[in-house]
């Protein structure tokens, strides 16, 4: 039996189509949680969790395995990498754009205002430091009055 050897670029390309289960406009490569792909012995994908208790971690691991198996990769292993810890700095520029279009303000440095994803005004106010998922806070725009979510800087 001849084993297929995959190129890690090819695997990465396939992974870049796997959506995040909680924010489906983002893929897992947009989020920056795919840390490494090793094709030397089967395919080992190294993933880093976002938050310790993120309920999506296991769902993401399962969808990575499923996505690769759909493309005929049979020997898929997942490695959980904790260090260095994930940071929102790893969200790609493309990912930040997609977040904004989706209506979620992307993470900003503490000293910068959070801009409204709809009207781009910086005149915004935090409603609650918490939102529908661990990674988001609730904001509102004083100018266009829209409530929106903010992807917290971590």
């Amino acid at each position, binding site marked *: 039996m001849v084993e297929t050897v995959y190129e890690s670029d090819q695997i990465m390309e396939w992974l870049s189509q796997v959506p995040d289960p909680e924010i489906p406009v983002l893929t897992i490569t947009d989020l920056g949680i795919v840390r490494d792909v090793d094709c030397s012995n089967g395919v080992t994908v190294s993933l880093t*969790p976002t*938050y*310790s*208790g*993120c*309920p999506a971690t296991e769902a993401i691991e399962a969808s990575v395995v499923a996505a690769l198996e759909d493309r005929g990769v049979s020997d898929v292993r997942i490695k959980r990498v*904790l*260090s*260095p*810890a*994930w*940071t929102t700095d790893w969200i790609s520029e493309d990912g930040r754009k997609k977040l904004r279009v989706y209506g979620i303000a992307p993470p900003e440095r503490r000293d910068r205002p959070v801009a409204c994803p709809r009207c781009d005004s910086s005149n915004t106010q935090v*409603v*609650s*430091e*918490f*939102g*529908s998922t*661990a990674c988001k806070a*609730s904001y509102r725009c004083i100018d266009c009055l829209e409530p929106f979510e903010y992807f*917290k800087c*971590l």
Partner: protein
Amino acid sequence: MSNRAIPATYATRLGDNALVLGQRMIELVAASPELEEELANANFSLDYIGQARMFYTYAAECEGGGRTEDDFAFLRPEHEYRNLLLVEQPNGHFGDSTVRALLFESWYVLLLESLTQCADEGIAAIAARAIKEVRYHLRHSSQWLVRLGDGTEESHARVQASLDKLWCFTGEMFVADELDDAMLNEFNGPDLAAIELQWQKNVAAFVAEAKLEQPDDQWMASGGKQGKHTEHFGFLLAEMQHLQRVYPGAEW
């Protein structure tokens, strides 16, 4: 203790603190005073339980005996749990759970900060992940302490009573036992004496800002690290472990 046994036991203890506090916070789900607090509380318990899972999984890996995170959480009796007495204290009212979180998180942040520099890579990696979350938790609990302490006459009096009541559980955070010494000496682990000084300073600043009075030096309860718990703990475990005790190995 063998070299691998020290991080295994230490990670278990860290997992116990995180799990027990996470479980206490779970008890509050659907009982928060407002929706934002509901979300905050549920997010915090998720973080803590997530941290516990990582610590237990790592402890099991160090042991190499085939135990899983679930064995640690659901199949150990009370005396095998080594969490601080503070985290197992009942939720009480909102001021009680706020003070409990503040006192613990002020310590836990310093402990994790130090652990990110320790020589055990597994624990250092989990600490680096966890500290980002706990800093956020502490910001929240300290904001509430100020809001309650510097709030109405009623909220001030009640949160002062919470502080007075829970203060006696802070002492054991700084009493190093054999395991703490082994972590310090062999793995460049936390120096509890140094952490105590910093903790005193940080907590005094929070208490002053909240216009509260710091309780006097007093008798301190201890025993959590030795597996001798307060009477509340058995009830917590009974609820948390019920399913696995009645239906061993149940999965979903």
